[in-house]
């Protein structure tokens, strides 16, 4: 289990992390979400010792993370980069060995990953001779070549074509099913919703929401309600204060309701207005949870994240 505990980091006047804490469970894919500048990359850098937090710590399996543990982690930074003039297979093998593999094991693993990425015939090519998409594949293979226990990917989907996205998704799922921890950041929320079981949402250096996506949705105060009453044009809703009407077309209304709304009462009203054809209750989309979570806090809110 990866535990991020109270991480705080300032760069001069800029507060990059402000007491961020969350955990990532092994075998589960964690989507790490947040607007630009929220502290995602800084958090990841703290995991890899690339940034030293001013306060707080990172733990892995209950122990503070040290260099030897990091050798069993795999990292794909947001700013991609490998040695442009180094041959692809040698490059992968080099990084495998830097993670503690023997030369032989690293060579074998490099070859296997290149095969897996469909680059078996490019093993002797220099990185710069590959297309952008293939360079991305090599970058992913670099993070995986030593079979890491924890995989941390910063924006792995950015710049990928649909085939690349499919490969990336497969690999991420495969790693998680093997029991590895997988944390990745992304702005593509639909993709995250599709791939991840858990999400962590960070804003202004603090964690504003974290947990299983389903639980977060269920706990959300904002549920979607779609009601269709034949011939009623939605007039029957008038005078009901606690509702937010999202869309009204024909006989259909789409509503956003919070927990205080009595659904039984609402259904009774609809029935009174006419024949109820649809009364469907749906959890919010991840993107809505996200927007809600990252909305600026009221100034008076000084809550501490434990």
């Amino acid at each position: 289990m990866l535990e991020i505990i109270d991480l705080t980091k300032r760069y001069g006047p800029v507060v990059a992390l402000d007491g961020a804490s969350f955990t990532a469970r092994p075998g589960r894919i964690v989507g790490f979400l947040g607007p630009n500048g929220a502290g995602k990359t800084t958090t990841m850098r703290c995991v890899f010792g690339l940034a030293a937090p001013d306060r707080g710590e990172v733990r892995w399996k209950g122990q503070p993370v040290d260099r030897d543990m990091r050798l069993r982690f795999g990292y794909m930074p947001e700013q991609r980069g490998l040695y442009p003039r180094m041959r692809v297979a040698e490059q992968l093998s080099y990084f495998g060995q830097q993670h503690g593999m023997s030369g032989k094991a690293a060579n074998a693993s490099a070859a296997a990953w290149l095969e897996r990425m469909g680059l078996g015939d490019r093993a002797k090519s220099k990185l710069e001779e590959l297309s952008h998409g293939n360079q991305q594949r090599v970058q992913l293979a670099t993070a995986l070549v030593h079979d890491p226990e924890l995989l941390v990917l910063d924006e792995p989907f950015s710049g990928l074509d649909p085939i690349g996205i499919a490969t990336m998704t497969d690999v991420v799922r495969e790693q998680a099913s093997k029991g590895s921890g997988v944390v990745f950041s992304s702005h593509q929320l639909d993709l995250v919703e599709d791939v991840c079981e858990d999400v962590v949402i960070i804003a202004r250096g603090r964690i504003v929401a974290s947990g299983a996506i389903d639980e977060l949705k269920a706990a959300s105060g904002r549920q979607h309600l779609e009601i269709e009453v034949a011939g009623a044009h939605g007039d029957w809703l008038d005078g009901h204060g606690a509702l937010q009407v999202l869309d009204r077309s024909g006989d259909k209304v789409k509503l956003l309701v919070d927990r205080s709304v009595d659904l039984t009462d609402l259904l009774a009203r609809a029935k009174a207005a006419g024949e109820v054809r649809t009364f469907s209750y749906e959890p919010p989309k991840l993107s809505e949870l996200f927007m809600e979570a990252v909305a600026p806090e009221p100034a008076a809110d000084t809550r501490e994240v434990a």
Partner: protein
Amino acid sequence: MPRWRSIWLVARREILERGRSRGFILSVAFTTLIVVGSFVIPAIVFGGDNPTKVGIVDPSPSGLQAAIEQSAERFDHKVVVTTYPSSAAADEALTGGGADLVVQVPPDLSGPGEIRVKRQPDQATAQVIAAATVALRVQNVLGESNVDQSALADAQRPPETRSLQAETEQDQAKFLVANIGAVLILVGIFSFGFTVLTGVVEEKQSRVVEVVLSTVRARDLLMGKVLGIGVLGIVQLAVFITAALIAAYATNRLVLPTTTPGTVVLLALWFVLGYLLYSTALGFLGALASRQEEASNASTPVTMVAMISYFVAIFAVIDDPDGLVANIATFFPPSAPFVVPLRAAFDAIPLWQIGVAAILTIIGIYILFTIGARVYAGAVLQFGGRIKLRDAWRSGE
């Protein structure tokens, strides 16, 4: 994983990647070609077919000219013999280039005589002439009715060689070796130190450094890089020196001073120390830059120090190898790599000074590396623009 393995992997990557690159192979081949060429081309142009101009000072023993010509033929050596009326006229020709070598032997063959050259004797021609005079004198002694054994022994003495200019042959060669040494160290520091500099910037520019540093400590990366590129520097230096020695020996262009092996060892030692000192400085300053163009700016102070040290060495120290400036510069790590081998080439430095200078330089390298590693760690992950040294130092914790 032990740190040495991490450092070794970094160093090995540098050696393999750069050592196999066309650039490195070409540069080794090119410098070797220049060294060999600088010995071989003059040998072809000036040696061989061009006859050596030999001057004979009158009065001279009869038959001397014929003896020299005969001897030259035997040695397969071309000479043109001119007779000068006086010693002064001969020396004038020697200075003016009318004669390469002047021979003066007593007309009665009572002594071995003298060979005079302008600066450095041409060994082959000197041998030709010695053979001629010895033959004449031996014949003369044997021609007497009763052969005087001591006169016969004396007759076999070759003429003495004297240079018109004060420098002896050894000084000449020492000067040359010292100069070549200083240039080699300067070029080595510049070419390989700058390889470290551009290597650091390349890693930063390609962003690979973030992946590398997720497993490798920043100071281990810097150390591996400096050591790996240093190995290539040593390889190039070894090829260079071997080529120079072989070429010098084969073409007979240069009579190497007896101190040569020591000089070469000392040169290699100071090449390593100088390289380590300067490339460490260049390496961490490179981390302050985000692009290659900024890197040359960042490196300016180091370039200046290296150039000043070099000029102090070749002007002040060659001028007076045991003077005050030379003595001070010996104990100053940035100038020691240039000054110590130079002074040693002139036999103008006591052993204890070499030892103390080496220790001081090693301490300097250690301090610079400790500072440099911290600056490097603080700067290498900051992208965009030039990073201030102070900021890098602070964030390097």
